[in-house]
């Protein structure tokens, strides 16, 4: 046993994979410790269906575990009501966000804000079926901010000028907008993002392109399978 025991830490399971016959290795987003890896021993069997139910992604849970860093051991888990229930497309958006967090967060790197942003996002996701895209875009913006990659949206650094609604821009992820006649995003969309209002279809479309560009940059070429899956779902 260890000196470092954590009790009843608010958390979400991001991903779990089977380990040996009946155990799981979990990627867990905790409130105070950031993303941690937990070994959940002997939870996959008939007797422990309640525990494996708790350990489903998107459930707000309280986890207790011990161990220092690396792979720690889960000692207890309970649900922290109210439950969050995602269905249909919302479920797929949840997978997408989990995949982002899985790859962008470093293990054992505390970031309390991310837990809160994520929790709020899931709560909104289960209620706003019609606004999935807008919710995703604002989640992404907040996530970048929390990771220290906050976007600079209002200043054309190449010309040292403020972004203007009527003009078109290209975007460089770690620097910001550059005016260009062939740019994919309008000044209007950039300023709307800054003000956290996305209304028109065009603005949503451009914002999606922008986020894709930015996340591709930070994911360093890693392809997101949930993105592909969402596309396949819409095609079918």
């Amino acid at each position: 046993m260890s000196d470092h025991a954590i009790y009843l830490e608010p958390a979400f399971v991001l991903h779990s994979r089977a380990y040996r016959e009946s155990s799981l290795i979990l990627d867990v987003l905790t409130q105070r410790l950031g993303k941690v890896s937990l070994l959940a021993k002997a939870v996959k069997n008939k007797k422990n269906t309640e525990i494996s139910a708790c350990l489903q992604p998107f459930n707000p849970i309280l986890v207790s575990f011990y161990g220092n860093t690396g792979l720690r051991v889960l000692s207890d888990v309970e649900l922290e009501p109210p439950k969050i229930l995602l269905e249909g497309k919302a479920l797929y958006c949840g997978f997408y966000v989990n995949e982002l967090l899985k790859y962008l967060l470093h293990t054992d790197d505390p970031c309390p804000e991310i837990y809160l942003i994520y929790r709020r996002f899931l709560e909104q996701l289960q209620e706003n079926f019609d606004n999935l895209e807008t919710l995703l875009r604002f989640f992404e913006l907040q996530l970048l901010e929390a990771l220290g990659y906050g976007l600079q949206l209002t200043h054309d650094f190449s010309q040292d000028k403020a972004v203007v609604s009527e003009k078109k821009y290209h975007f460089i992820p770690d620097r910001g907008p550059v005016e260009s006649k062939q740019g994919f995003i309008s000044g209007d969309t950039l300023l709307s993002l800054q003000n956290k209002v996305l209304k028109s279809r065009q603005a949503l479309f451009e914002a999606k392109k922008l986020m894709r560009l930015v996340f591709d940059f930070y994911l360093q070429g890693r392809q997101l399978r949930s993105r592909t899956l969402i596309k396949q779902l819409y095609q079918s």
Partner: protein
Amino acid sequence: MQRNGLLGQLIQGLCCLPGVGPKSAQRMAFHLLQRDRTGAEQLAKTLLQTLDNIDYCQQCRTLTEDKLCSICSHPGRDQSTVCIVESPADVWVVEQTAVFNGVYFVLHGRLSPLDGIGPEELGLELLEQQLSSGAVKEIILATNSTVEGEATAHFVGELARKYQIKASRIAHGVPMGGELEYIDAGTLSHAFNGRREID
């Protein structure tokens, strides 16, 4: 314990079985070699034969030694109702309840983007061919009640909708996280009868 040579290989080979650790693998190996060499020979032959001959059923992808499994080729089964399950073991579970007289489609997994499992890995192209042929009138989604099972049910439900096929989801009498394997026959019968149509 590290052993070299054939005996070590055998022990390690036995460790690939569920529930078998190095200790019991060692016991099994000694038992086969010391006490039951005929049994061992038979086991080895059978293993090789099954590996050579058992493959996926061409219609439902369950394990069978024929082109079509005994369910798909049974004249009494209703070919217009297809029950979608995650594993061949689930077919057995549902069969035990005797509430279902249609045929199956076995996914051998569930959609799980974070594990790199998409529609291609689950044979959904083959399923779509069957749905598009017009022979299927109803599908019953009996994937596990986990988030991945739900996501899979949603995806297949959308496929069914594309071909205007009725789709229903079994009503698990178990909490989220429940796997078909762990449900008793009574509960599962209820789940089948209480299935609800998805729109």
